[in-house]
Structures are given as structure tokens and as C-alpha cells.
């Protein structure tokens, strides 16, 4: 039976929300790992029953959990994330050198073809990889040591590697993003990297050609069109048509171009979704109205999607990893809020339903399309 499995990471555990392909009746299971921060849960595209979860706590540190049965049962795997060699320093908030210190795993990206291979994006920013289903992790240190690492600076939420995109058409090509260093690309499966931030403009960076330092909040790509990338930057929604070699702004008529999430329709590579947030000092939607904005033209022209979303007195945020799309014929779109709601649309955003209303603050949302 086809359906969807929505994987939700929250400040106090993970939840799995399921429905059949009609996406009308939803069942919530969890909390898994109750009381722990779950930054991310993601399933393997090669084996949908293989899930990985990042479990962490300020008290007890980082764990990685793995499920082989679609989230019914879980077992911890290795949690050793040791930087390769002497990690050196990056730049602290005040511009002084600060030693690299592992804090947590923000994002887990399973390989497109092998359920035992997973990439992990961590804070302080670095990339790790397992090839044995999480039994061991090794740093892809070419990212941290490629030359600009000493200039990287944390954003307000920490110096996190939060986005990992694997290009299905160019094996070995990986895009990642770090707050607040910027976007980077590897063409050799993470061995070597280069910054891809040309065209980004940030008010706090006087050098218009700065190679790094931009606070990229999220990248998105449609798998059928992997040279086109979309970016929600701290401010500005951006687009690249050449694999990140250059970017141009497509914020267009958005009410504000600050925000965190950005995603692409499963079947329409030029249809995008963002959730505008009022400002970086007010992390809530403008006018107390929670609105998803959709562009059907690859940016610039945006329409507000409001049907089923609260249009008064709403002051939640939608964090960077908290939006996903399913691949059913009528594309489903999902996002979670810091108020503990998870909203779903089974018609590409035309209307929305709260499929969970009272969860802990949502950090991440992923969805698996089950066939």
C-alpha cells in the first residue's frame, strides 16, 4: 500500500506520522528518545526501512540511532565524531581564533544508492561519513582544511553544517551549506571542496567578492535539474543555474526575504516554497500570519498560500530543516513549527491541514514516499 511516513525531529524527541496515499487520516507514533533533542531523522532512499536519527542533549552529548524496520525499533550506533588531526581554529563571534569543538550532528544524509553510507553535517562545521551503517564515522576533512576554514564564523545558532545535497546525476557531486560560512561544492565525493558563493550579498560583509562568510540558511535542488540550486540566505532568496558557480536574487515580491526553509515541488522543478519570516531580530511571520509562498516560475513571482494556515496571532518560526515534499502524484508539502505544529498539504500547497498540533518545538521534518 502506498503512503507517506513523516519523520519529525523536535526539542524533546522524535515522532513518526503516517498516512496512506490519500493523506487524510494521520497516525502519530512516538515520542522516540523522549526528552532528547532530535535534530534530524532521515530514511535511506535505497531502503526506506533504514532510518537514521541524530539524538543529542546538552547533558549527555551526541548519539546516532538506526532503525531497520521503518522506525518501530531503534539501536544506537557509533557516536565518535573525531576531527581528523589537530582541528585548529575558526573565527569566533568577536573575530578572534577559536578552537574547533564538536557539539552535535545537525543533518544526516543517507546515500542515494547504499543504505550503509551516510553523510553527517556537524557543529562545529565539518562533514563526516560512514560506510558501514553507522558503526564508525570518519571526517571528510578536505572541507574543513581546504583553506578558508580559519575564516568561518558561527551564526547565532552555532557554526553548523546543516544542508547536504547529493546530486543524482553526477556521482560524487555534493553541495553543502554552513552557517555562517556559505555554500560549498565537492565533485569527488567529499575529498576536495570549493566555496560557491559568488553573487551573494550580505549587509555585514563589506567585501562584495567575499569567498566565505555568508549566512546560508538552506539549499534546495530538484533531482531532475541538478545544476539549478535555490537558496534561502539569512536575507535574500537566491538561485543558481550553474551548480553554484554564481547566484542571483529571486526574492521578487516576497513580503520579506528573511527565512529559513526552501524546497522544490517533487514534479515541477521550477516550483518553489519558502516561509517568509519577518526579520532576523523577530523570528516570526509578518503580521502574525503563517504563509507559505510558492513560486511557479523558479522565483521572483510568489503567491501566498494561506488556506488552512493560521492568519492571525501566529508567532511561530519554521526552522531550516523543517520542510519536505513527498513524491506522490499530487505533490505533498510538509513543514513543522517551533510551536509544535506539523502542517501538510496534499495538493502542492493549495490547502493545508495540521497533522500534529501540540508537539515540542519542531526542528526538522522529512518525508518518505512509500510504495
Amino acid at each position: 500500500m502506498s503512503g507517506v511516513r513523516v519523520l519529525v525531529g523536535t526539542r524533546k524527541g522524535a515522532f513518526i506520522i503516517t498516512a496512506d496515499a490519500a493523506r487524510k487520516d494521520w497516525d502519530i507514533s512516538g515520542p522516540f528518545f523522549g526528552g532528547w533533542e532530535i535534530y534530524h531523522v532521515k530514511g535511506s532512499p535505497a531502503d526506506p526501512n533504514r532510518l537514521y536519527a541524530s539524538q543529542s542533549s546538552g547533558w549527555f552529548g551526541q548519539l546516532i540511532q538506526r532503525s531497520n524496520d521503518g522506525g518501530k525499533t531503534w539501536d544506537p550506533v557509533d557516536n565518535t565524531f573525531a576531527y581528523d588531526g589537530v582541528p585548529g581554529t575558526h573565527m569566533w563571534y568577536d573575530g578572534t581564533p577559536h578552537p574547533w569543538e564538536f557539539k552535535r550532528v545537525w543533518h544526516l544524509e543517507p546515500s542515494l544508492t547504499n543504505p550503509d553510507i551516510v553523510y553527517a553535517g556537524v557543529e562545529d562545521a565539518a562533514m563526516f561519513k560512514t560506510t558501514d551503517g553507522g558503526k564508525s564515522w570518519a571526517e571528510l576533512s578536505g572541507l574543513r582544511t581546504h583553506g578558508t576554514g580559519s575564516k568561518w564564523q558561527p551564526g547565532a545558532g552555532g557554526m553548523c553544517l546543516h544542508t547536504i545535497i547529493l546530486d543524482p546525476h553526477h556521482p560524487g557531486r555534493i553541495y553543502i551549506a554552513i552557517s555562517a560560512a556559505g555554500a560549498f561544492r565537492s565533485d569527488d565525493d567529499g575529498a576536495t571542496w570549493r566555496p560557491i558563493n559568488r553573487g551573494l550579498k550580505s549587509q555585514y560583509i563589506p567585501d562584495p567578492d567575499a569567498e566565505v562568510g555568508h549566512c546560508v540558511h538552506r539549499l534546495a535542488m530538484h533531482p531532475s535539474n541538478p545544476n539549478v540550486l535555490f537558496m534561502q540566505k539569512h536575507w535574500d532568496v537566491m538561485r543558481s543555474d550553474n551548480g553554484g558557480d554564481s547566484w542571483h536574487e529571486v526574492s521578487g515580491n516576497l513580503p520579506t526575504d528573511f527565512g529559513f526553509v526552501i524546497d522544490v515541488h517533487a514534479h515541477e522543478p521550477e516550483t518553489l516554497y519558502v516561509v517568509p519570516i519577518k526579520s532576523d531580530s523577530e523570528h516570526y511571520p509578518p503580521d502574525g500570519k503563517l504563509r507559505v509562498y510558492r513560486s511557479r516560475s523558479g522565483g521572483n513571482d510568489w503567491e501566498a498560500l494561506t488556506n488552512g494556515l493560521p492568519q492571525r496571532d501566529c508567532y511561530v518560526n519554521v526552522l531550516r530543516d523543517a520542510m519536505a515534499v513527498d513524491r506522490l502524484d499530487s505533490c505533498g508539502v510538509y513543514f513543522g513549527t517551533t510551536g509544535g505544529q506539523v502542517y501538510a498539504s496534499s495538493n502542492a500547497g493549495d490547502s493545508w491541514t495540521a497533522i500534529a498540533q501540540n508537539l515540542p518545538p519542531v526542528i526538522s521534518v522529512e518525508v518518505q514516499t512509500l510504495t
Partner: protein
Amino acid sequence: MIRVFLPAHLRTLARVAGDEVELDVPAPVTTRAILDALEARHPVLRGTIRDQATRKRRDFVRFFACETDLSHESVDCPVPSSVAAGLEPFLIIGAIAGG
């Protein structure tokens, strides 16, 4: 046998019943020896009490025994004799936060 009290989250993680685990720890019984034995019995706890690389106590984890805070003692100091004799537990506590 050494009795070790674990905080709730670590009991869940290690899948132990009850508040305490009992460990065989060779003499001299020190904090380091207790933690080594605990992690050997329950590998999932590696990294949750002390850092994997530096072996230092995590900031928000405290060690107590016999109403004494041992958190800042050397991990190579012998623990109180009543702990070594199994009469009193060695307590691993998550620092209390809140208002």
C-alpha cells in the same frame, strides 16, 4: 560489587532496569575505574558521561558518593571505602537546570 546510580536518560539508553547497575571493578576502585567498567558493560554510554577524546567529565554531569561531590576530584583518587565495599552507591547525576 560496585553500585552505580545512573540518571534516567542513561538508564533508558543502556536498557537497564532499576536505578542502579552493579559492576565488578578491580581495586583500587577509582572514578576512572568505575567509568571504564561501566562503559565496557554498556558501550552505548561511551561519550555520554565523559568526552570520547579527552576523557574529561561532560560539563553537566556530576559525580557524588556518600553525600560528597566528587566531580572535581581526580578520577584516579580512590572512591570512599563504603562505595568500594558496595555499601553506598556511586551516583552519576545530570546537573539540575531550570528556574
